[in-house]
């Protein structure tokens, strides 16, 4: 039930934010289009936020939007464990592996480097807002060329807008409960990744496993 209420509020906020931004010019997809990577290795993100678990919370919401766009995405937790087992305990060290080495041991067409720039909630008297921001950079494993990059920020406020003071107090109480764990940031991470990869003209073009592959090549 709490989840439903949260989604309603969240959905309204996303909607109200969506209308008022002028879209930036469409990205140049020349490099991505000519290479057409089929498989993407997602490394655990670097973390520049103050939430120490942000990296892995963010990582756990990357696969779905990326795979649904039509790319093969290597199992993120398995990759993490495999690299740790091989002497690379942190995302920082994993981001230092040479592309030659990645090609040799895992063999993806492209590598996705992520940095979590911001991940956290800000509390006010009657509401709170959660901000998640990340930078993504997709690189051709054979040449090291950048294929695509983008930074996306999502801010979700849990204030309900209209309604009387009693309603607002209830809303504040609910959001305190939800936001008391990492979960608020996790939900916003999911939205942020969905936007990052799938927004038309800014996100990725469809990969070979999507039935719309090739329809967005203009």
């Amino acid at each position, binding site marked *: 039930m709490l989840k439903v209420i949260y989604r309603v509020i969240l959905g309204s906020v996303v909607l109200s934010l969506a209308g008022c931004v002028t879209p930036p010019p469409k990205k140049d997809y020349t490099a991505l289009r000519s290479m057409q990577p089929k498989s993407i290795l997602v490394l655990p993100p670097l973390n520049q936020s103050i939430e120490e678990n942000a990296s892995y919370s963010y990582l756990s919401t990357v696969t779905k939007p990326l795979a649904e766009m039509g790319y*093969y995405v290597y199992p993120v937790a398995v990759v993490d464990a495999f690299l740790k087992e091989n002497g690379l305990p942190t995302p920082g060290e994993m981001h230092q592996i040479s592309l030659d080495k990645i090609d040799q041991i895992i063999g993806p067409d492209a590598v996705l480097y992520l940095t979590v720039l911001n991940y956290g909630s800000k509390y006010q008297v009657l509401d709170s807002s959660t901000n998640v921001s990340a930078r993504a950079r997709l690189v051709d494993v054979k040449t090291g060329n950048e294929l695509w990059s983008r930074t996306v920020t999502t801010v979700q406020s849990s204030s309900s807008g209209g309604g009387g003071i009693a309603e607002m107090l209830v809303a504040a109480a609910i959001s305190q409960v939800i936001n008391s764990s*990492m979960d608020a940031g996790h939900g916003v991470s999911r939205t942020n990744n969905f936007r990052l990869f799938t927004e038309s003209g800014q996100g990725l073009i469809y990969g070979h496993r999507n039935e719309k592959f090739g329809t967005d090549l203009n």
Partner: protein
Amino acid sequence: MKHKIYIVIGLAVAAIFSGCNQTTAYYWGEYEEQVYRMYAAPDQATAVAQLEVLELDLQKAAATDKPLAPGFRAHMGFLYYQLGRFDEARNAFETEKAEFPESGKMMDRFIQKLGRSNA
């Protein structure tokens, strides 16, 4: 009244953003949730607990016409491997490779490693 309209529109948008199952090409089940829990609640998300959830997902997926998400089988293979259930691990890695040949190099590496673990 205005409030009600917001709720309806909000629900519609939330449905789109949460990627509910009707709109996905793959069956995802609890895969990403398990990945999250491995890091957020490692004491609870043991290999045994994760497999219990994911094996149930396999049954649910079989009842739909959707293929399992990329990485799903490989993730299970890794959990079986952790528990020393090498035959099931090998089977999971081979299935991942068959469904997604892109994963071949990595799956072959894991399968090879299992061969050594067995010996």
